[in-house]
């Protein structure tokens, strides 16, 4: 049943990563992801991989959980890796008619594979240690300075958290409507592509109608509870940049220095 899926995959814990300010987590996740794209030697790969593995250990998240995010990407990973194997030119290893597998191709496929895995793990490290609420809170605070140039930071964050709140509800609703229409003879699984797309109209119309109705009622409920935008609003959970974030950031900078420092060293050597 769809309803059982917890959103945002947050796993409660007491690790340093859990306790960090969501803002520093967001910034560092972005920096790490950029770093993953920049690295290109095997030494750098090893350092990067070791660092992410270290974070994983610190976070107390079971390895299985953090790798779960890769599952849906397996097909894409496989296709890109295979394309790399066949299309990167270089020293040929095997030749099968017009198809040629090269040494460089294999190397680049392996590297690409690890690069993507590291990306996914880095990103899920953040979502697994941060509640969706804390995440939107962090985004709101980070966008706060932009309010002066007219960016509705509070509204954007509120919209994001409401979306998060209603995704499971709407998923349940979709399932229910599909079952109801199937009981009335709707057929979602057979026929041409066009026919199948068309068969979703009986699902989409009621879904939209109900989503608008929900939006209406929710707005009313929010108003009844004195909601009037971000102004003058306090928050139950204050997020603070603590000494912990400072230490973590210093560790992060140190790591980046080692990572790219090694690049100069190998270049020099």
């Amino acid at each position, binding site marked *: *049943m769809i*309803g*059982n*899926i*917890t*959103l*945002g995959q947050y796993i*409660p814990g007491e690790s340093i990563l859990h306790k960090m300010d969501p803002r520093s987590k967001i910034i560092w996740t972005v920096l790490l992801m950029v770093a993953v794209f920049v690295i290109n030697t095997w030494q750098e790969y090893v350092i990067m991989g070791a660092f992410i593995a270290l974070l994983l250990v610190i976070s107390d998240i079971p390895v299985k959980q953090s790798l779960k995010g890769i599952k849906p990407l397996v097909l894409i990973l496989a296709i890109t890796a295979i394309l790399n194997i066949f299309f990167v030119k270089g020293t040929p290893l095997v030749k099968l008619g017009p198809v040629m597998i090269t040494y460089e191709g294999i190397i680049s496929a392996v590297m690409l594979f690890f690069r993507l895995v590291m990306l996914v793990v880095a990103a899920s490290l953040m979502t697994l240690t941060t*509640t*969706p*609420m804390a995440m939107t809170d962090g985004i709101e605070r980070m966008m706060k300075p932009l309010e002066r140039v007219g960016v509705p930071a509070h509204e954007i964050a509120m919209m994001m*958290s*409401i979306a*998060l*709140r209603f995704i*499971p*509800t709407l998923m*349940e609703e979709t399932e*229910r*409507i599909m*079952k*109801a*229409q*199937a*009981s*009335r*003879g*709707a*057929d979602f699984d057979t026929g041409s592509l066009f026919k199948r797309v068309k068969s979703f*109209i*009986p699902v989409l*119309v*009621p879904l939209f*109608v*109900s989503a608008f*109705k*929900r939006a209406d*009622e*929710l707005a*009313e*409920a*929010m*108003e*009844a*509870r*004195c*909601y*009037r935008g971000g102004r*003058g*609003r*306090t*928050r*139950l*959970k*204050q997020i603070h940049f603590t000494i912990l974030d400072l230490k973590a950031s210093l560790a992060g900078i140190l790591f980046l220095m080692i990572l790219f420092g090694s690049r100069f060293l190998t270049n020099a050597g």
Partner: protein
Amino acid sequence: MIEFRDVYFEYGSQSVDQPVTQAINGVTERICEGEFVVVLGRNGSGKSTMARLMNALLLPTGGTVWVEGMNTSEGEMIWEIRKTLGMVFQNPDNQIVATTVEEDLAFGPENLGVEPLEIRKRIDEAARYVGMEEHMGHSPHMLSGGQKQRVAIAGILAMEPKCIVLDESTSMLDPRGRKEVLDLVRTLNRDRKITIILITHHMEEAVFADRVMVMDSGRIIMKGTPGEIFSRVDQLKEAGLSVPHVTQLMHELKFRGIVRGGTTLTLEEAEESLKGVLVKAERKADVIQDSAVTRESGEAIVRIRELTHIYMPGTTFERKALDGVSMDIMKGEIMGIIGHTGSGKSTLVQHLNGLLKPTSGSIEVDGLEYSSKILKELRQKVGLIFQYPEHQLFEETVYKDIIFGLTKMELPEEEIRKRVKRVLEILGLSEELLEKSPFELSGGQKRRVAIAGVLVMEPEILVLDEPTAGLDPQGSEEVFSFLTELNRSNGTTILIISHNMDYIAAYCDRIAVLNNGSLEMLDTPRRVFSHEERLHKLGLDIPEITRLFRNLKGSGYPVNDHVLTISEAVEEISGIVSGQGWDKGGMIL
């Protein structure tokens, strides 16, 4: 506390040919601090509009509304008014804003600009008060309906209101959830002196009020104590309402001159006054002789054997929803399926038309066993109507919506027209509706149109999940009467999932009781409801009338304790009182 002075409200028209709707039609009324007021009224009587006028979600188009001396039409007091007067809405899902219970409770105080430490204190206290302190970190969609409404109430308590308005907040809940919410508001009213305004169409909820108001077409047509209101049975019926079953019973007995006195509201009162007219005597245990039992020798249209269903097997969410259920459903019977939320009722019926595939065991419907090839045929044989079926309407016109399923059956146009006409007749819908958009109709009409969409396929078996949910007493009564009609005239086998034991007792031939995915009992209503203690353990009630008679018999009075409906009860009592009942125990059965 709250005062309406000659208030009018009309909804603006959305198109040229649509007239303005006069929702409130001259209401002058005062509600005092600490009162517990229940507002009754059929669907569309204007009671929800009343609620919205109280906290300035709507502003009167004529007259004024005052809350604690503040005029709602004067914009600057609006937040103060909403802080004083909290509102709990109907749909538990659409009023929870945040992704965790804790954050949602904090939403109100945050809006008021309360300091974080103070918010913490208030929400912890409020959560404890409503008994949700252990669910603070939970995601709202994991909670039951009753729990969600308790969260909504706690969220309002954290804003320290003086008054709470509940706008049909119990109508989407099961009996257990409804009791949770009612107990809570009664305590709030008693211990904290919070004014409660409860809007509902469940008559039993009005019994505990200090004062009851009845609304119809935007006016308050009756007001008084519950006793005064429920003594006017006929007037209430005219307003599309009913009275609690015991009240109805005593009313009819009074009409026959058997009992005297004021209006009876509770079971205890009924028991007392019946003890006054009955004489204690011995009575042999009554043997249940049900005519419906003979149906067991009929022909089974559905054969279920060792049916087991497991959701999401192999994952951490794995859940056994059905566990080895075996039963036969007889051709032409009306079967009730009862069990508390999560007992497997919905899972069971979804196997009937192949929406779910058995994990193990088998189900055979009129000779068809589940396989992807026969799905189409199966779904024509078994019509399944979900809760709130009106939520699936989607076509431009009522006609197109009704024939949606038929178009897949490749029937001639003429046959389609004929079938639609027949269905409209059974459901009591007028043909003028056919060219309207389904979204223009009233709630009750929408429900019937949605049901029509299934009936036109002329299923041999019709399955309905809570067909009366959200309908007022008159609407519910109509649903059950056309179902009986359908059963009688077309011989359609009907399965009804319902929490309403009174309807189940009155209309079903047999009842299947489910608990934790297993079949606990399968028998006639009379036999099933004779196991009061056993049902109680499963979180289920017996009809109020049956309970009354069991209590009387328990106290040594010579009554048959297998009585299920009001008319049976009236017969039984008048039979005994006129002295004929002594030796003919159980004659009416």
